[in-house]
């Protein structure tokens, strides 16, 4: 029934579990079982679960925007630097005694501006997405350094941690609820609304989309701006989780986010992918990082494991496609 919304191609729909997502679910179950046996049940204690959920939410929220960007055929490698610069802006507001409610817009607006700059360079400047965001990756990082220098912001009000992490309706932290609501909204948007379908159309064939009257430039600009806003949300969450900002905050974060999206089966060539996959991908990345700590494996193995998982998962999709 859900597939009637799509016009003939294999577009993912609101809830329509593909073979790949099934594979990811199995992966999540197997890894969870492995960790909980290996850690003698330490996996299931409250503080570890909270930790795992918050970390996953922090990856997931920007990954939603990244999925949309990649669906249009683009990419944003600057999200780590964006997170850092937004955290500097928001943290500075906190340092000046601004409360949580008043500082939240600072995070969102700062993120929106940085994302808009990326989008404007890509759409109106016609700079290829990898190049544009590679450039802003270093520019945003330098900007964070100019503002902050060697100073560390530690005056994050406890209300941030209280609101994001410690308040747990139904045993789930607010930050995780926010992530879940955001992803549900975007899933409905992508599957049900015309604008959502346009995003797939752009990724499948940009020129055809343009000739059909779809405002390609405006939609792409919106996707990058949205990702900026979502990075702002993630920055606020991460300050609730670890209340400190330094110039290196968020370094390498873009790779975790992209890894979650790619693991989730969204194809970098655009036009194919799903947010459900991204959710599972983010959980898998979170589990690997968590498991490495719990099983007392050298933390260095997490990179190796993550790399191998990405290759196996993407490679298996090719093998399956060849078998079809």
């Amino acid at each position, binding site marked *: 029934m859900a597939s009637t919304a799509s016009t003939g191609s294999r577009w993912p729909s609101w809830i329509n579990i593909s073979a790949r997502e099934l594979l990811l679910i199995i992966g999540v179950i197997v890894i969870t079982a492995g960790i909980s046996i290996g850690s003698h049940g330490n996996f299931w204690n409250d503080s570890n679960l909270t930790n795992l959920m918050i970390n996953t939410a922090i990856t997931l929220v920007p990954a939603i925007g990244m999925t949309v960007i990649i669906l249009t055929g683009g990419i944003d490698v600057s999200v780590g630097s964006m997170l850092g610069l937004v955290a500097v802006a928001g943290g500075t507001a906190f340092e000046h005694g601004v409360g949580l409610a008043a500082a939240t817009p600072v995070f969102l607006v700062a993120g929106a501006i940085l994302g808009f700059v990326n989008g404007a360079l890509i759409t109106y400047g016609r700079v290829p997405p*990898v190049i544009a965001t590679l450039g802003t990756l270093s520019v945003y990082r330098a900007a964070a350094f100019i503002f902050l220098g060697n100073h560390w912001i530690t005056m994050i009000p406890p209300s941030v941690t209280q609101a994001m992490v410690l308040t747990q309706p139904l045993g789930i932290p607010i930050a995780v609820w926010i992530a879940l609501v955001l992803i549900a909204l975007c899933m409905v948007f992508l599957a049900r609304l015309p604008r959502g379908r346009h995003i797939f159309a752009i990724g499948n064939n940009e020129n055809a989309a343009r000739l059909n009257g779809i405002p390609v430039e405006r939609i792409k600009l919106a996707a990058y701006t949205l990702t900026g806003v979502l990075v702002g949300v993630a920055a606020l969450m991460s300050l609730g989780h670890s209340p400190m900002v330094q110039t290196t905050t968020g370094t390498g974060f873009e*790779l975790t986010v992209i890894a979650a999206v790619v693991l989730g089966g969204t194809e970098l060539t655009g036009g194919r992918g799903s947010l459900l996959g991204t959710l599972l991908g983010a959980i898998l990345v979170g589990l690997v990082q968590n498991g490495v700590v719990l099983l007392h494996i050298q933390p*260095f193995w997490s990179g190796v494991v*993550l*790399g*191998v998982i*990405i290759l196996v998962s*993407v490679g298996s999709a090719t093998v399956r496609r060849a078998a079809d």
Partner: protein
Amino acid sequence: MNRIDWTGRAPVLIVISAITLIGVTIGAPGIWSVDNLFAMGVLAVEIGIIALGQTFVINAGGIDLSVGAIFALAQVTMGLAMVAGVPWPVAVALGLCVGLVCGLINGLATVWLRVPAIIVTLATMFAFNGLALVITNGIDVSGFPDGFYVLGQGTIFTIPLQIIAIYLPLLIVLAIVQWRTRFGRLVHLTGTNALAARLTGIRIGRVQIATFVIAGVLAALAGAISASRLTTARPDAGEVDNLISIAIVVLGGSSIFGGKGSVLGTALATLVIALVNYGLSFNNLNAVYQSGLIGLILIAAVLMQNIMLRLQQRRATAAG
């Protein structure tokens, strides 16, 4: 003629080089001494060699995000081997083999699994970096035999060895490979139109794998020079080199979509980046500012190329 794009990229690179020269001369007047130029060259050689390999990958339509990780993995491998008593030339050869194997993995995964190079090398970047940390326990390796220091600290007629005996010959050889050999033409053909290349009977898979192997070996070579210069092999070295090498290649006139570009452009762009870096560090400005400025230059260069292209199109339509 499609190797150097005189309509858009080459003039932009020349203009940017000129601006950099003037800017550095004004901003860091003391920079033009022979000693400073050699010091600058020494710093530029390592990223410059990585960028030469990246040029081949990008020209063939790929991208390699793992060169920095290969740089680190190769240098700690040879470092550990030397500490274990292996003679240094053997250890260096071993490190180059590590680079070769890493490049082969990248190439085979890209071609056999038919996964975009950016995903493959994102994954292998995690894996190679992780391996470098695992085999060293995350600790720097040092205490190499004296002979090894020749690579990064030796001189020939007071000129640093790695400039005159490694980088320049390498550049000449690669330029000849690119311009005068069948393989060089195949790289550009593959990058211009992979489908057409395949239909004309070119084994594009082999070409792509070869470019990744070149990039892997050159990254390992850069790793050896760096370990020798700093007398230390670091498992976390080269983290920024992944992205900076791509920035240099694009600044040097290669199209990120493949098919256009030359190692000579890459060499010129390396010089520009080295000048900017050295000029800034001459004024005691932090490395973060340097990469920020490189980011700005990269975006400005591509924007300028696009503007020139659009002007040209307008002229073409007006003439037509």
